[in-house]
């Protein structure tokens, strides 16, 4: 404890004065490291004394072929580190490759990898949370992590950032901030990769019909294009998942609300939401927007079977998909199987540059159940800042937030993944045409998704509904605020 406090203090002094200088230079950091004096470390020291950081030089990176920050993983002894994430086969492979590489350099560190699907992951992690057996490192989500901070499951990373054990200096400030908890402003999560809302569309179809899809479409432009496509080809539009707050958040941001959810309730007014639901009802009435029943008849969840890239009849096809840029790879693969080419642009909205945002696709967090916080942080540092790690991770979780790393791996990753430059391009475009992302969602937001948004969108998209957009708009605000108040 004492050592940590001193480290923090010294680190801030260092940062201000840049007084300390030193010898070793790790791969991706030009920062000079101190010639270290032997330390009074409590941990079993297997490493060479030169690599041992005395308290005063806590900010000096370890001399290693990996970028691990200031803690020497070799000094941890023989340990097994748990690492959990949700994902898919590709993500499993690349993450294993990155951790294997770590083990090859530090044979004393083994990993217990735990990969699940999204739903199973949260079911399992909440169980682990109840029994204090969470893995050392866990993947986190922007919508979720505040709730995990509240439960005291995530380790406060701020001291490690201040001590230099976790180097976030190469990440854009705005992205680092996305990992801060709204309650205390401390960092609990680090962006594992960046993405942005993206509209993937069937370029083959739009080219055939001679329709140009502009970037930064307004909603009316989008409606006109969708109508035209629908009339000419019978292909419609599948909107967002019915239980998703994304379209409403995006809409709210376009109206100038920075966020949809605030601590006490939602920012939008019933009148604003009336207009939102009016859009949906009009779309269904005009035929181009998938109705509730049609949504149920298509696969909304599995990319290779989604209506953008799958379906033998125009009536079950959608010319575009509302998704995020890191999913573009999977869509592009599925599109290739379907024989179509995809394009990518921003979601339509009236003020698209206000609405759009760059977002951490996922986070990595260290849990409070860890026995080796220093080691876990060092591994986290490796995953975020090490070029070799990120080459192995293949930007599967989104473009690395560390811009130097993102540039360093571009050639290597593009070799096997042709969509990498397209996505980087699109993110560059979004960076120019967006505003800062909304703060992490308050813990009640997830319940609003499942308990409110789902059934209201089902009503709005039901042509036989008896509800008017006005009642739906009012219901949204009332029900969401009631949940917020009850939490």
């Amino acid at each position, binding site marked *: 404890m004492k050592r940590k406090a001193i480290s923090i203090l010294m680190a801030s002094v260092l940062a201000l004065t840049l007084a300390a200088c030193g010898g070793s230079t790790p791969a991706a950091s030009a920062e000079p490291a101190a010639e270290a004096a032997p330390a009074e470390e409590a941990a079993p020291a297997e490493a060479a004394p030169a690599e041992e950081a005395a308290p005063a030089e806590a900010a000096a990176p370890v001399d290693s072929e990996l970028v691990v920050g200031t803690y020497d993983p070799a000094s941890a002894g023989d340990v097994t580190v748990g690492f959990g994430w949700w994902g898919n086969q590709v993500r499993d492979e690349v993450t294993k490759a990155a951790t294997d590489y770590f083990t090859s350099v530090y044979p004393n560190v083994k990993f217990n990898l735990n990969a699940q699907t*999204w*739903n199973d992951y*949260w*079911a399992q992690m*909440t*169980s682990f*949370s*109840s029994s204090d057996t969470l893995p050392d490192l866990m993947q986190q989500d922007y*919508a*979720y992590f505040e*709730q*995990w901070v*509240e*439960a005291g*499951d995530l380790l406060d990373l701020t001291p490690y950032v201040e001590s230099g054990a976790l180097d976030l200096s190469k990440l854009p400030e705005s992205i680092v901030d996305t990992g801060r908890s709204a309650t205390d402003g401390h960092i609990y999560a680090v962006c594992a990769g960046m993405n942005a809302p993206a509209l993937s569309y069937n370029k083959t179809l739009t080219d055939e019909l001679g329709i140009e899809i502009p970037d930064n479409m307004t909603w009316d432009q989008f409606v006109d294009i969708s109508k035209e496509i629908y009339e000419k080809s019978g292909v419609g539009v599948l909107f967002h998942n*019915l*239980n998703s707050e994304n379209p409403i958040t995006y809409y709210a941001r376009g109206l100038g609300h920075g966020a949809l959810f605030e601590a006490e309730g939602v920012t939008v007014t019933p009148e604003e939401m009336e207009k939102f639901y009016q859009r949906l009802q009009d779309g269904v009435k005009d035929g181009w927007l998938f109705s*509730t*029943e*049609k*949504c*149920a*008849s*298509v*696969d909304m*969840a599995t990319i290779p079977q989604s209506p953008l890239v799958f*379906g*033998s*009849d125009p*009536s*079950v096809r959608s010319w575009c998909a509302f998704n995020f840029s890191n999913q573009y790879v999977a869509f592009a693969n599925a599109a290739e199987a379907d024989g179509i080419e995809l394009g990518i642009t921003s979601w339509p909205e009236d003020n698209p540059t206000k609405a759009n945002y760059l977002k951490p696709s996922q986070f990595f967090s260290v849990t409070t159940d860890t026995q080796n916080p220093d080691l876990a942080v060092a591994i986290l540092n490796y995953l975020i800042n090490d070029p070799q790690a990120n080459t192995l991770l293949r930007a599967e979780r989104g473009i690395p937030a560390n811009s130097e790393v993102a540039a360093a791996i571009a050639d290597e990753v593009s070799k096997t993944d042709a969509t990498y430059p397209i996505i980087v391009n699109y993110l560059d475009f979004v960076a120019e045409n967006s505003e800062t992302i909304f703060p992490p969602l308050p*813990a*009640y*937001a*997830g*319940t*609003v*998704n*499942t308990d409110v948004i789902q*059934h209201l969108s*089902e*009503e709005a998209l*039901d042509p036989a509904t008896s509800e008017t957009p006005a009642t739906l708009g009012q219901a949204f605000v009332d029900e969401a605020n009631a949940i917020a108040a009850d939490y």
Partner: protein
Amino acid sequence: MEKKRSLRQRLGDEHVAGYIFSLPFIIGFLMFMLIPMVMSLYLSFCKYDIQNPATFIGLKNYIDIFHDKSFWKALRVTCYYALIGTPLKVIFALIVALILARDTKLTGFYRAAYYLPSIIGGSVAVAILWRRMFEPTGTINAILSVVFPGMTNFNWFGEKSAIWVLIVLTVWQFGSSMLIFLSALKQINRELYEAAMVDGANKWKQFWKVTLPLLTPTVFFNLVQQTINSFLAFTQSKLITDGQPKDSTLFYTLYVYRKAFPNMGKSQMGYASALAWIMLVIISCVTALLFWSRSKWVYED
């Protein structure tokens, strides 16, 4: 009796033997059911999100459930599914068992073929296939458009029909009930048929007078088992329709699961526990009703 008895004598006592035979269950029930059940009963009176300690809130969960529209919807959906699906399944199983009771060289193959669906029915692959078959451009519609020209692209996943996609799936898996019927059919004493034949009963009469009465205990067993299964059905609804559209296929257990492990947001484990307890009461009542009716129609010798 008052004299000391040897261990052997004690063990030979019918009461003692009864408890010894029941011992595995008694231990198992206490260890693996009762303790967790008591915990879950307690949780049903709590606000509990798994991650934070539970706080006691009395009857609030139960009161809230009473006003919860989704609860009533899920209950309706589940009853509809159980009341239609179960009898259909049992009747199908019985009919096919009667057909396959005949011994031919191919009987083994037939039984395997009709039984296999119940082995693979719960798998992910079947869920995928089922969606493909019933989607607007799928196999089912393709066949229907040949039989009924003009019927094109019917949306099976509409609000009224989606539940039927799941009912068909459960009926399709009648294999295990069929097997139990087959075993029971083999147990029927041939002499009874011979006696009936002597009395001049034709096949049809034999079925109603001999086969069916003797099968009623098996029908009962299958009915109880399948009714409970229907009330607890989960996987198909989760994988194939996920409760959609408009909660028209929201099975009760799926609703419980969603509350306990939501896709997003905090777990409402306390609420889910209360929901599960209500389900337990409902299933108990239905089962009790079935057992009460047992004496009315089940043939006992």
